[in-house]
């Protein structure tokens, strides 16, 4: 252990919800994106799933909202070290979309992409089983544009760069194809509890 002289840190709280290397951002919700926030109206938003699926499909805003509503209430974790507790998102479970396109058995990975062109790569298993959402509400209100509104992917059990803002689609593949940050030095999976921040972690 490399103790830093004179460093004591914040008072310790017994917080089992905080992954290693993270701090509690409290009421803050820092904005982190590497690009210009787009002006994207709900009327112009679409969401597509294709690639290794039986029936590729595109939903518009009204069609997506006709799917059964599903909420996430819990924590989110950003690779830059902040975590945020007890957030509430509303939208639709990604399972509801996937069951309508029927992924092929060969599908093992996904590239999520945004209306701006940002990409994030994930194992398909991280998008199924009630662990991923298309979210358009935050705390009961429309998701702000700077946080990915009108709709973003939400994969709260992974670092938040995987939760692509301004989500436009998900393409299923039979191999891992690194997305934007995965090509820029970040980890392929990004599990906060195993501190998978960078390639090689």
């Amino acid at each position, binding site marked *: *252990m*490399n*103790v*830093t*002289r*004179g*460093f*004591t*840190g*914040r008072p*310790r709280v017994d917080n089992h919800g905080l992954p290693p*290397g993270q*701090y509690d951002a409290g009421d*803050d919700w*820092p*904005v*982190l*994106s*590497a*690009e*210009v*926030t*787009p002006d994207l109206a709900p009327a112009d938003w679409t969401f597509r799933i294709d*690639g290794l699926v039986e029936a590729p499909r595109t939903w518009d805003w009204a069609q997506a909202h006709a799917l059964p509503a599903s909420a996430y209430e819990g924590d989110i974790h950003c690779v*830059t*070290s*902040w975590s945020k507790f007890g957030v509430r998102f509303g939208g639709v479970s990604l399972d509801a979309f996937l069951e309508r396109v029927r992924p092929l058995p060969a599908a093992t990975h996904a*590239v999520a*992409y*945004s*209306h*701006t*062109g*940002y*990409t994030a790569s994930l194992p398909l298993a991280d998008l199924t089983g009630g662990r991923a959402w298309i979210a358009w509400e935050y705390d009961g209100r429309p998701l702000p544009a*700077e946080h990915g509104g009108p709709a973003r992917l939400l994969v709260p059990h992974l670092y938040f760069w995987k939760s692509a803002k301004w989500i*436009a*689609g998900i*393409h299923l*593949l*039979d*191999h891992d*194809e690194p997305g*934007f*940050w995965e*090509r*820029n*030095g970040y980890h392929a999976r990004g599990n906060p509890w195993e501190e998978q*921040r*960078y*390639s*090689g*972690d």
Partner: protein
Amino acid sequence: MTETFTPPTRFAVPGRIAVSNGTAGHWQTATLTEIRRETPRAATFRFAVPAWVGHLPGQHLRLRLTAADGYTAQRHYSIASAPDDSGHVELTLDHAEDGEVSGWFHTEARPGDRVEVRGPLSGFFAWPGDRAALLIGAGSGVVPLMSMVRHHRARGLSVPLRLLVSARSPEELIYAREYGAETTPVFTRAAPPGVPVGRMTAAHLDPLLEAAPAGGWEAYVCGSNAFAEHASRLLVAAGQPVHRIRVERFG
């Protein structure tokens, strides 16, 4: 391998710089060698990192402090110094209110202290000096941009480079003594006599975009989220292509 996939949308910002996966993977000891006051709130901390592999201007590192009971705090910081072969890197840190890590640096740290770092990290907000660069920063958002300016000078590069830097007042302008003809400061609260006070506007940006070099600018915007939103919207309004704006937000 079967097909590869390209999103059916314009790719926002191509990551054109390959990132070494090996170097970011381990922590190294960094020894503080010098502290330089920049402004009442900001100071530069110089570290010896003998095994540092070098970085590109604009890249950041991750820094870790460890308490006696094993508690650690980690933060990302942009690298302020230009790449060189001296085995040193510099960080410029604001003293954040209640800042756990910046507080230690500003009240406790002294030369000889050791911390841990890993990096360099991220190949996105990086500028190797190959394209004309328009740099726009506010507050400590100027730190990674200064690495680019210093790199430009140290290498005697001829590719065009301009810096617009916003600060509340001359006293709070980080690196004030180092700026040259490439830099236009913008003061939002107090300015020297004869210099207007106010936030960055189209009037600052339009002349730079009108005078864009052949091939256009690669724009780098860094600062608070509010500043980054403001500056990037000004850029788009002035005609800068969206896919040639890179944004680093200090959350």
